[in-house]
């Protein structure tokens, strides 16, 4: 993976007192820095570019976040939900996967932003966690950014882990396609932090997951986190169907389970490639030669295109079978799938979202 270096740092006035600012300046002393009064206005100016989404990834904004940090994961209409919460400490990502849903989700606001008010983030999380001590929260930071891609510069995870490690009713999940784990290794996660990798066979990574860490870099990073006492997760999402996918995915699982102790895994998730028609248009514009969209996808009731149901059920069933050979009791769940698909894959479907969320809580 080539080291991402932003072309410019744009800092909103007032953010200079943040620990994230200090970390950025220390890690990127050579990158030109501009202080602006209003970062969101400056970010909008970049929208005139031919590929605003791609261009936005080259400048890094540091600014206050004025809304709520802590949100319920929206899931997908009518699909089984895993009762997940998200904390958005950044928006957009320096990596550029051809299937990334942010291409559509952030198309009107694509600036690569990191939020400087970490204290507000922790205060807000603390209020919620304190108020609901009887509720177990799975919280992820990788919904609209990669949890660790910017870690070498921002040190954000290093700021957050000590707080979350002390909370009795939480699992913090850091979800990534990077290998940037160095800053985590000397911290004690106290069983409260899961570092999770989105994984695909080498062929998919090479063709579709641009500017991400290689398969082996991710796996080596996972091993280092395991050795440092972190729990791990893997998300086989999006699974891509192509000629020979079975051999590639089996080989990938073989390598993972040879390197990782499956008893340290908190969960594995499966999800197939999915996109709204709007995202499909964006993918075709930005990656016209990608063959991802030539799969046999149909429009599902939640407005997303997926491989037609018998095909994807067969894919899930195969994956579960291969996983079980290595990790007989690890928790495997489907991301954004219907009850019918759950039933066809596992022979059961969670009765409600709390059931699925709770199933994962005691594994921490």
């Amino acid at each position, binding site marked *: 993976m080539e080291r991402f270096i932003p072309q410019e740092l744009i800092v909103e006035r007032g953010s200079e007192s943040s620990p994230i600012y200090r970390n950025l300046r220390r890690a990127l002393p050579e990158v030109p820095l501009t202080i602006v009064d209003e970062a969101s206005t400056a970010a909008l100016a970049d929208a005139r570019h031919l590929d605003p989404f791609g261009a936005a990834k080259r400048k890094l904004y540091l600014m206050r976040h004025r809304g709520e940090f802590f949100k319920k994961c929206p899931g997908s209409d009518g699909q089984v939900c895993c009762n997940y919460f998200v904390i958005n400490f950044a928006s957009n990502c320096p990596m550029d996967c051809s299937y990334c849903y942010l291409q559509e989700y952030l198309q009107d606001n694509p600036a690569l932003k990191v939020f400087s008010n970490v204290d507000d983030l922790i205060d807000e999380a603390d209020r919620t966690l304190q108020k609901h001590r009887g509720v177990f929260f799975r919280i992820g930071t990788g919904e609209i950014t990669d949890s660790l891609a910017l870690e070498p510069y921002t040190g954000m995870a290093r700021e957050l882990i000590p707080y979350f490690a002390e909370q009795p009713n939480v699992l913090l999940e850091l979800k990534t396609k990077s290998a940037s784990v160095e800053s985590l290794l000397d911290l004690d996660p106290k069983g409260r932090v899961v570092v999770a990798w989105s994984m695909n066979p080498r062929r998919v990574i090479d063709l579709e997951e641009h500017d991400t860490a290689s398969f082996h870099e991710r796996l080596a990073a996972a091993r280092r986190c395991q050795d440092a006492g972190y729990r791990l997760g893997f998300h086989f999402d999006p699974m891509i169907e192509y000629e020979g996918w079975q051999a590639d995915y089996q080989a990938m699982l073989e390598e993972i389970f040879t390197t990782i102790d499956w008893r340290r895994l908190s969960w594995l998730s499966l999800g197939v490639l999915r996109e709204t028609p709007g995202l499909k248009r964006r993918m075709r514009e930005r990656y016209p*030669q990608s*063959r991802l*969209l*030539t799969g*046999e996808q*149909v*429009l*599902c*009731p939640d407005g997303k295109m997926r491989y*037609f*149901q*018998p*095909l*994807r*059920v*067969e894919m899930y*069933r195969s994956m579960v079978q291969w996983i079980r050979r290595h990790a007989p009791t690890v928790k495997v769940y489907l991301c954004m799938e*219907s009850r*019918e*698909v759950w039933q*066809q894959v596992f022979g059961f479907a969670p009765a409600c979202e709390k059931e699925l969320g709770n199933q994962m809580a005691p594994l921490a």
Partner: protein
Amino acid sequence: MMDWLEEIALRDRAAISEILSSKSIEDLKTDPRRGRADRLKQIKEQIRRLRYPRLAATEEEIRKRIQSLKLHPEIRLSVPAGLEGGRLQIEFTSASAGEFRERVEKLSKLLGTPAAAEIFALLAGQPIEEK
């Protein structure tokens, strides 16, 4: 339909003109037994089959099994578009309690047939043993 053609072209590394002049489409274009509207419909269906070969094959297998059940005309079995949802839809009409009972009994008998089991297996992505 243009999207389908572009996606077939990308997948098969072929030009759209090559796809449109392939034998399966050429035969339909020049079939003297069909009117213009029918030819267009058949060509569109053929392009769909080229774009979604396994989906079309699964739908065809289901259709064959439904046909093999030799249902009463008042009973209709169908599957959702794109097979999404994994459910078989059953419709029937009846004009009296007697007819109603008769339809239900016929449907109930169908449940035990291999064809019915295979329809559900196909909807669930399970392999079917070739006869």
